[in-house]
């Protein structure tokens, strides 16, 4: 199961995702991201604090979202990347690709791990 709600933080549209992101649920997230961009929200934060599993399919959706926002002159950042998620992000090198921030401060970078 996957549920997505949204809120605004300054110029950022924050998508709060809950559940597991895999082959079964990633289309829901992909549609949500495309829908937000289509509605004019080019700066997205995907808050993954409520996500306890993400696989390569889910990572592909996030990469796709990053490319889509940037192609529109916007950006996509992530928050709430902990546990299993941070391990998968590290192993795939995506921790260097994505900017990880505090959901409450989308303009500040907190992902500067040593």
């Amino acid at each position, binding site marked *: 199961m996957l549920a997505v709600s949204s809120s605004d933080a300054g110029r950022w549209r924050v998508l709060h995702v809950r559940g*597991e992101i*895999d*082959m*079964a649920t990633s289309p829901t997230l992909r549609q949500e991201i495309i829908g937000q961009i289509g509605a004019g929200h080019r700066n997205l934060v995907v808050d993954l604090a409520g996500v306890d*599993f993400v*696989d*390569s*399919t889910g*990572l*592909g*959706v996030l*990469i*796709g979202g*990053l*490319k889509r926002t940037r192609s529109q002159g916007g950006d996509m950042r992530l928050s709430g990347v902990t546990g*299993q998620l941070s*391990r*998968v992000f590290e*192993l*795939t*090198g995506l921790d260097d*690709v994505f900017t990880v921030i505090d959901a409450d401060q989308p303009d500040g970078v907190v992902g500067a791990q040593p």
Partner: protein
Amino acid sequence: MTSGINLVIPAQPEYLSLVRAVVAAAAALDPGLGDDRIEDLRIAVSEATTNAIEAHANLGSRERITIRCDLADDRIEVEVEDHADPGFEAGELDSPGPLDRPGRLEYEGGMGIPLMRVLADEMKIRSLDHGTAVQLVVYASGPSKD
């Protein structure tokens, strides 16, 4: 001594969370496997099962996928067997290559197999008459994959 379970699922993505839950629960029966390694196995098996479901979907196969978990004293072996003939050849996979390869942002897919390779202590892909079997092994006392 070995023990284990077999799980046979329809080739549908809705069953992935069930597979992860069952494999994690089976792995937890092995007192030598830490939570981190169980998590590694859970991700790797999910990736292998995802590939099997995709292969079935591409061929319109209505056969089922078998996930076998064998618990031995020193390791857990999981084999994901599909019935998506013809099986893919490991060398012919369309993959972006190493995960840290520059330019990998060009690819939204193809991360599953490299992920399995780094998460499991051993990974073998066998072509069968009727499909493909992916074997994943995690050792209880194995070196951490970090």
